[in-house]
């Protein structure tokens, strides 16, 4: 369709406004992380740091709690991702391939788990995990994350499995391959992009999660990165902007890297889940 030049210009201006609104905050955060304390003290903040250096990052990393919390977050996110994939893949396969009675039940559960406010869940969770000695432990948080990341993982994986042509599996079974063999040799390789996208998404949601961690982890040595960052802010007044901004940038890096990878894939995954679900 032909577009008039005036409309074209207006479109570019509008896109620029959107991008400034969406990207400027992150830009400012990164710029702040490179500024010296003197620059924060000045009355007129400048957009770019005058003498950019990495001292805020080294300062932030010298805080014992921060490095420790990063390791905690990493451990929790990796364990959650692995478990979610192991447990969800068979379920997603069954949901996409079998017309079983469990299908509507599972989809109902996926929906309900989105609607319910977490406050209703977290109190009983706390009461269940306490006698099992799993409150205030990393395994406790991991199994909670696993169960609560599953709805979204299932939603995505279901779409990816449906996208694998059923005929391929039928051909394999005609050739005498067992169901398990078919899944491992035919379905899994085709699912790899979908599995990677789901894994990244699960990792990020565990890495970013705040509420369950806030309630379930009290031990300072076990706190995750978001908890430690939130505590930095809590001490308003003597808060040091530079190291805080640096730590925030570090916390965002994994998410940004992953999303740069999977942004296109995620869109199609969401949509196929929506259409086939």
């Amino acid at each position: 369709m032909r577009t008039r030049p005036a409309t074209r210009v207006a479109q570019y201006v509008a896109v620029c406004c959107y991008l400034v609104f969406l990207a400027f905050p992150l830009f400012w955060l990164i710029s702040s992380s490179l500024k010296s304390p003197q620059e924060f003290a000045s009355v007129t903040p400048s957009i770019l740091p005058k003498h950019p250096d990495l001292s805020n990052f080294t300062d932030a990393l010298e805080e014992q709690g921060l490095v420790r919390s990063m390791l905690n977050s990493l451990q929790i996110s990796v364990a959650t991702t692995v478990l979610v994939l192991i447990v969800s893949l068979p379920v997603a396969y069954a949901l996409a391939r079998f017309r079983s009675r469990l299908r509507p039940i599972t989809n109902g559960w996926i929906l309900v788990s989105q609607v319910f406010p977490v406050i209703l869940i977290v109190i009983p969770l706390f009461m269940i995990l306490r006698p099992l000695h799993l409150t205030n432990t990393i395994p406790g948080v991991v199994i909670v994350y696993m169960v609560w990341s599953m709805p979204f993982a299932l939603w995505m994986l279901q779409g990816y499995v449906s996208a694998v042509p059923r005929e391929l599996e039928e051909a394999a079974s005609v050739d005498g391959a067992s169901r398990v063999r078919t899944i491992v040799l035919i379905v899994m390789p085709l699912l790899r992009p979908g599995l990677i996208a789901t894994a990244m998404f699960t990792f990020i949601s565990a890495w970013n999660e705040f509420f369950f961690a806030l309630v379930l982890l009290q031990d300072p040595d076990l706190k995750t990165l978001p908890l430690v960052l939130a505590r930095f802010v809590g001490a308003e007044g003597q808060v040091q902007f530079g190291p805080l901004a640096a730590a925030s940038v570090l916390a965002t890096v994994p998410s940004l890297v992953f999303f740069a990878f999977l942004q296109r894939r995620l869109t199609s995954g969401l949509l196929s889940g929506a259409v086939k679900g």
Partner: protein
Amino acid sequence: MSTDALRARASNRRDRPGGGRPKQNREAIFLFLPALLPVLLLSVYPLLRGIALGFTDARAGLNVDTNFIWFGNFGKLLHNDLFWDSFRIGLIWTLSVTILQFVAALGLALLLNTNLKFRGVARTLALIPWAMPPVVVAIMWRLLLHPTNGPVNEILQNLHLTDHPINFLGDFSTALPAVIVVGIWVGMPMTTVTLLAGLQGIDRSLYEAAAVDGASAWHQFWSITLPQLRTVIVAITSLDMIWNFNSFGLVYVLTAGGPGGKTMLPMLFAYNEAFRYGNFGMAAAMGDVMVVIIIVFLGFYLRNRLRSEA
């Protein structure tokens, strides 16, 4: 996928009524098994227990008696003005964020759906807020809106829109609007991406036919784009509404409900009730009220949408 294939699939489905063949059911159960125990123990059971907890006087602590008190908590909530305030704030927050987010996202999605240059770059940049941890988003906006060091105040003063720095997050009149802007910022990418996917699914020939008939761009938008997008719009706005109503981390770190409870969303209120004051039963009762409100709200919304479709 062609409509023929869809129809074939639908009739295929009709061939196996009532939950499928027994063999398939058995196989499915086998595949469900590893997931079943954790989901039952840590999701289904806590959900039911959480609902029931609202009807008890459960408190934090190891050896506290818990009694079933029927609607006692709800009776107390009825006379709790702070609770009603919190719900009012929650509704203002949910509706403003959802509606403004949708309008802004639709605009961006329409722009990204045209053949602009740098569209790919724009699309990736537009996803930034999505990728960030909510806690970091909150910290970042606190830096941006800071009364003395923040660029927002600096810009406003340079434009002579204000002569004194505004403490956006600390002032009674600006706290809620400021938090709403951050909420829009966070939720826009998801909504944009979903709407964009919907836009790309619209058949181009509809527009070509309309252009031949001489329909203006505005007219095409109203009579083709919006109706074609309806299901996507209903789905994403419903989800946004639920997510916004239940949101916690962002505002907890931005304002912790302050100043003076002006941004005390229902989730924050319930959280304080449970983990600051130890009133588990009361907090669960608030959660129950939130569930009922969400369901009633969605029920109304979806019914109206579906009716206008019929």
